[in-house]
């Protein structure tokens, strides 16, 4: 085992040096992952066209955003993991600074605030940046340390994670803050966090749940309560869950057909082209459509985990693995939400829901993964 691995890692650079590298490798792209992503995005556009009420404008807008996101992926992939690692702390601290700025502006009486905006030029959601910056920062810190991480290292990591997560939670954006924390925790998990600590943390988390409950905003509590019993408020907060389940359930095995979902097209389904696009898919394409998408996601995750395993250094492995697992968490949370097994949180269905920012973030993540995979060099001393 040990020997095999070693051989594998020691042989890789010579491959790059000795033979002519493939076109894909020179482009720093992984063709299989790219193919899977493009299939998903293509199929997602088909669903989006129907979910937006046959709006060509929305669909074309999403297509152009995908273009931008793919470009960003391509650009990021050109940087070596080392470069990314070096720039990570800067990105992280800029992100935290922007979160503080958002917080301050919120305190200045602008209400709930998630956006930073230079009017007319750019609108930016700092929490989106943190989805990548926080796990990368944790990886940057950990990869130099002996692993599995020591207690002291864990405390430092908790600080790295806790600061931005608390700031995002105060925006308030519970969903994103949990996802950011989740991404960072994956890094630590993959770094080999001992099972004893995992068990301890699990117990701590369980006991912290009531604390979380009391720190929630009223609407967040309402969402949880509604999730537990949607029928308690069928016209209000429970509406989303009920209509979404109705849409999916009425789709059956084969679906009602593209553009023919009554729940979706007659607008019984709320947020049908953003967070609840999965319900449109379920209604119009049925169980088969849902399973095809689920399979695409699982394949992407599988390919991603494989790519992370081929990374040459710990930083790349940790960041790559975290990105892929977080991607799946998005999928699971969104699909769990539309099918009524998880509460309603504002998490889009990756690369299918309408929205530019999240697509760009996701594809940048996959760009990092490709960079990790394609940049081969001799192990650093």
């Amino acid at each position, binding site marked *: 085992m040990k020997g095999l691995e070693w051989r594998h890692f020691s042989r890789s650079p010579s491959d790059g040096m000795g033979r002519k590298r493939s076109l894909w490798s020179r482009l720093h792209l992984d063709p299989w992952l790219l193919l899977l992503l493009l299939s998903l995005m293509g199929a997602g556009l088909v669903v989006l066209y129907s979910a937006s009420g046959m709006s060509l404008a929305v669909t074309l807008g999403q297509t152009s955003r995908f273009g931008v996101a793919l470009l960003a992926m391509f650009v990021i992939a050109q940087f070596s993991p080392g470069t990314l690692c070096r720039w990570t702390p800067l990105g992280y601290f800029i992100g935290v600074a922007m979160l503080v700025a958002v917080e301050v502006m919120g305190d200045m009486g602008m209400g709930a605030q998630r956006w930073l905006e230079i009017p007319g030029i750019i609108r930016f959601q700092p929490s989106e940046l943190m989805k990548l910056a926080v796990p990368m920062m944790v990886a940057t810190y950990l990869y130099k340390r*002996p692993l*599995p991480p020591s207690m002291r290292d864990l405390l430092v990591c908790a600080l790295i994670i806790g600061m931005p997560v608390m700031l995002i939670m105060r925006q308030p954006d519970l969903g994103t803050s949990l996802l950011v924390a989740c991404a960072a925790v994956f890094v630590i998990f993959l*770094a080999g966090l001992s099972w004893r600590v995992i068990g301890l943390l699990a117990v701590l988390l369980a006991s912290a749940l009531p604390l979380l409950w009391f720190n929630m905003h009223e609407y967040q509590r309402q969402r949880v309560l509604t999730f537990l019993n949607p029928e308690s408020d069928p016209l209000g907060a429970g509406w989303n869950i009920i209509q979404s389940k109705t849409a999916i*359930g009425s789709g059956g095995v084969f679906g009602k057909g593209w553009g023919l979902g*009554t729940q979706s097209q*007659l607008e*019984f389904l709320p947020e049908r082209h953003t967070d609840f696009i999965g319900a449109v898919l379920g209604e119009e394409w049925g169980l088969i459509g849902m399973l095809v998408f689920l399979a695409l996601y699982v394949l992407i995750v599988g390919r991603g985990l494989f790519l992370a395993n081929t990374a040459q250094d710990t930083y790349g492995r940790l960041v790559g693995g975290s990105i892929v*697992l977080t991607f*799946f968490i998005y999928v699971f949370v969104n699909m769990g939400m539309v099918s009524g097994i998880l509460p309603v949180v504002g998490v889009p269905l990756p690369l299918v829901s309408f929205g530019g920012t999240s697509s760009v973030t996701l594809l940048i993540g996959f760009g990092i993964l490709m960079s990790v995979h394609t940049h081969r060099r001799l192990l650093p001393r």
Partner: protein
Amino acid sequence: MRKRRDPIKDTAREVRVFRSRSLLAALLVLLMAGGLGARLFYLQVVEHDVFTTRSEKNRVRVEPLPPTRGLIYDRQGQLVAENRPTYNLTIVRERVKDIDATLDRLVDILGLDETQVEAFRKRSRQRQRPYQPALLMSGLNERQIARLAVNRYRLPGVEVEAQWLRHYPNPKIMSHVLGYVGRINEQELASLDSGNYAGTHYIGKTGIEKQYENALHGQAGLRKVETNARGRVLRELERTPPEPGKDLTLTIDTRLQQMAYDLLDGRRGSIVAIQPQTGDILAMVSAPGFNSNEFVTGISYKDYQSLQENLDLPLFNRAVRGQYPIGSTIKPFEALAALQNGVVTPQEVIYDPGYYKLPNDSRHYRNWLRWGHGRVDLERALAVSNNTYFYTMAHRLGIDALSNFMYKFGFGEVTSLDVQGASSGTVPSREWKREKYGQVWYPGETLSAGIGQGYWMVTPLQLATAEATLANRGDWVRPHLAKRVGETSIEPPFKNTKPDVTLDKEVWWDDVFNGMEKVVSGREGTARHIGKGLKYDMAGKSGTAQVFSLGQNQKYDADELKERLRDHALFTAFAPVDDPQIAIAVIVENAGGGSSHAAGLARALADEWLLPDDENTHQAEELIKEDVEVEGT
């Protein structure tokens, strides 16, 4: 400072750990994906039917299609109740986010004043079936409709709908016959077939409109429509058309009705005319009437209050609910009772000294003519309305025999087929008095009853019905207002609902009729002033209903009494005697004696009904105007 580490050992272990951890993660991913798949299988396969039903319920809305209300015609085919288009403002509360803001906006747009706003808000609070439009205001004008259309985008859930609204072309004269429709109130809503009335706002409240509500309303239809989440109708999926209400043809003749109303000339009173062969009610007037159209659109509280407080009681249907002492109009029936019971013969002569005395009683029961009519037989007793003769008859008959005979003519019960709210009146008897007052019957009360005073209570409709039966020589007909409902004729036979009145000798009818004819045409007749120029034979009988009793020796003086304490004038008649076409009962409240005030009205009405236009000289109307002072009761 910096920890040294062993890169080789480190890396190998890290790779190993990463590999196992990512493998574990991959397994978890598969597990979670499997969980999602299972959940989707549950929703889309196991529970598919449940959610399909739910989704259909979302999408498909069933809308009621209210039927149009049947029209009402009079017997000549003249429209007396029609439907006119009107525009209503409705609101679906479930589709309105902020009801108060919406109402404020509407008040602004429509330019409503304070009282309207209040009514408006009150109505918006009324309970309604969910997702059914609730009526906020009817009768929008074009300006208001235009302003609503412009502001429509700001007013979700608010709709202008075209609707048919009941309209009565002759509200005053027909108000008590037709009744009126009004908005369905909560009480009615609870007892109605909610399916059939789902889209209906109005319901018959009184009169014919109430009596024939089922037929007039029709059967609601429905349509299934596809709607979006905001309730907007996208297309129709299915339609069951409503079955319109049946048209109704009344027995009423509007011209006669109008004339009867005009004849009362602003007085309080009632006229009922019945066709004897059929029981058709040709005219049924209660004056004063009211404008029933106001009740359709929703009368204001103030206007309603003033109608209620009006001393003339315009809302009170005197024709069927007004109870009056029968007065001397009892006499023809009493004469028949005496003949049938064998207590008198037509030829028997009774001497009238101006009063009647019971054996062993000093009290004098006076004739209206102080010095008496002298020798009086049955015919003359009717013609001059002699009291002494009928005191004698009553005494001979006894109250129970008299009452039992009167029941045969429909007194003391409701006999009409389709008249809403009719009263049964009172026929006095020993038993009745014992039950009602717990007292014994006094012989003197029999005498009062014998001239139709005392406890007698009859409605104008009862009086006319009895008169029609009399004219028919006892053949019973049931009075009714509807001639045809849709295609179905309402004609006799409903004869057998009550046994015909039979006499031992048929000729007794003629004896009584002769007396009644003399009332109008005889030299001494109490209503001889209306006999002038009569072109057919008319049998009549005048009557006076005392509003309050006079003491033993008080002289009646109408002028000294306040107007409202004066006696009611009664007159009953039928004509022509050989082939009766019309039986009439006239009651004019507080008009004094019956012969002077009521008789002319009956003659005018009979002229109108019996004579062709070119032969009707309208002499009777002149006679009424002369207001001849005639003695008698």
